[in-house]
């Protein structure tokens, strides 16, 4: 059982009802696609939108990527600073 940190930003925190935190993942979850399958379906649908990016340990990732114990996994909507 791997513990990771899931984080939600912008409107995704509203959709998730939380800004995130540590979760213990079942042993079979080894990548981001399996993680999304495991999450609440209505939240997973939001997170699968093409405009949502996944940030793992402060790096933006594209496609399905492996997850390791201790990872910080952020879900972010389109960014807009300035």
């Amino acid at each position, binding site marked *: 059982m791997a513990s990771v940190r899931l984080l939600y930003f912008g409107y995704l925190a509203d959709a998730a009802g939380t800004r995130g935190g540590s979760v213990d993942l079942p042993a079979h979850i080894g990548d981001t696609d399996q993680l999304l399958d495991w999450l609440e379906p209505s939240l997973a649908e939001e997170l699968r939108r093409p405009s949502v990016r996944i940030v793992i340990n402060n790096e933006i990732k594209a496609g399905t990527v492996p997850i390791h114990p201790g990872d910080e996994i952020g879900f972010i909507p389109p*960014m*807009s600073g300035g």
Partner: protein
Amino acid sequence: MIRVQEEPFDPAAETASLALRSGNAGAVATFIGIVRGANEEAAVTRLHLDHYPGFTESVIGRMAAEAEARFPLLALAVVHRYGDLGPGEPIVFVGAAAEHRRAALEAVDYLMDRLKTEAPFWKREDGPTGFRWIEPREADHADRARWTSEGSEDARD
């Protein structure tokens, strides 16, 4: 010099501090972004900026390094707020010092275009009838695209 902070800042003091650090600069260009009290006719009573601690600083740091690689700068400053801001409050300060004006002006222009489309902040406008999360405008993406025609070193996935 990069700072991401919740506390208000004074753009005039940032300008003075940048000029002090800039040695033989002949040119200092600055940009200050300010919360507007209305956006597309809708009243905005508060702007909430969400950010991603650690990641936000890291992305802005990379942008600043890319600006310094692209333009001959003597000093550079980016100050960006998060949290709750009221109309009239500065959100962002970008300042660049260089020997000649073109490098300073273009570095500020470049960094603002990148901040608008690639800096990890998420803005929620709160008004009398509710709130809405806002995303970059089409114009922001078009502005950002101006800087990739010359090269691809900063093209992102």
